[in-house]
């Protein structure tokens, strides 16, 4: 067990320097890989939207995967970088439990927004006609930007 450099510190690392550095490097690579996967998915979503007949279900699945990957990243940052994984279980729970409730909050409100949209589309045809984007037959190519100054 490695002794801390100062007597007052009661927290003892249970691993040595080398193992810790390895863990940090492993986690960094993991975070980078997850980010790259998310970017690849993001670009896939972009390509799907540009093509003919974009499959909405596929896009939705991709978005779901990206959300799960982001949660994975959050787990690694909090557990390894912020050392929450090394804390006492009760302490961990004081953080995790509110965050789980918070996740419920997120799902509930997005579902609420979505439901509002669906109900409004059903009962307000004017809203639906004026705001629903038309399905393109031509691909929507992004605009060549003319910036004010470069």
């Amino acid at each position: 067990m490695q002794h801390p450099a100062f007597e007052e510190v009661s927290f003892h690392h249970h691993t040595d320097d080398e193992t810790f550095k390895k863990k940090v490097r492993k986690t960094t690579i993991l975070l980078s890989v997850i980010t790259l996967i998310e970017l690849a998915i993001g670009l896939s979503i972009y390509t799907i939207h540009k093509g003919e007949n974009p499959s909405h279900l596929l896009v939705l699945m991709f978005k779901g995967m990206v959300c799960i990957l982001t949660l994975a990243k959050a787990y690694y940052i909090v557990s390894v970088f912020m050392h929450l994984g090394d804390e006492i279980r009760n302490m961990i729970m004081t953080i995790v439990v509110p965050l789980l409730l918070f996740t419920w909050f997120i799902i509930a409100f997005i579902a609420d927004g979505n439901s509002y949209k669906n109900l409004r589309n059903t009962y307000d045809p004017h809203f639906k006609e004026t705001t629903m984007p038309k399905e393109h037959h031509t691909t929507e190519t992004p605009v060549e930007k003319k910036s004010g100054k470069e």
Partner: protein
Amino acid sequence: MMWYFLMSDAFTFGAFLISYGTIRFSQNFWPDPNVVFNAFPGLGHRNLPLAFVSVMTFILIISSVTMVLAVHAGHNGDKKGVMKWLAWTIVGGLAFLGCQAWEWYHLITGEHAVLVDGKIELWGQTMRHNPWGAIAEGISHNGEHVRTPGPVAFGGYFFGITGFHGFHVFSGVVINIIMLIMTQKNVFQNRGHYLMIEKAGLYWHFVDLVWVFVFLCFYLI
């Protein structure tokens, strides 16, 4: 305790992002982030969706890694190590702020053709208006698409949330600079521990974490 302050801050950011999500999913039309955010500094008009924001994400992740190394050096009482890794973390934070500033500048000063009351105007993206509406069929401006004004909420949410996050990055950089100066002056060496660095580290990781979610909400979904 820093963790509990971070929880309260997490709920604040969360509330902003959730309200963004609710409004965004209540609309039939929302600007495609790959169309809005496709510029890269120095590369002119090339269409590069997600490129610049990826750079920003990596900068922040790497600055988090350097922060972990700074905290670790603190556990070993390694003053020089702490200073080195803190310095790199500060560089990363400043780089991120520079990138965000460029992004804002580019969006605000950009000129995009918008059809307003039958006339074409050139709009950038501001809090009150943005040029990211549906494409107006049948007309073009210098060979580019002309759009209708986009949803008013877009600008407010984007600048508001990224601005609030950027403010946290800035305050994190300031805190890290103060930590660096205190380390240099042997405050922690005399105190007998570097636990303050660990708390600053928690705050910095939190800032990185929030960015991961902002990146998700605005650029990916």
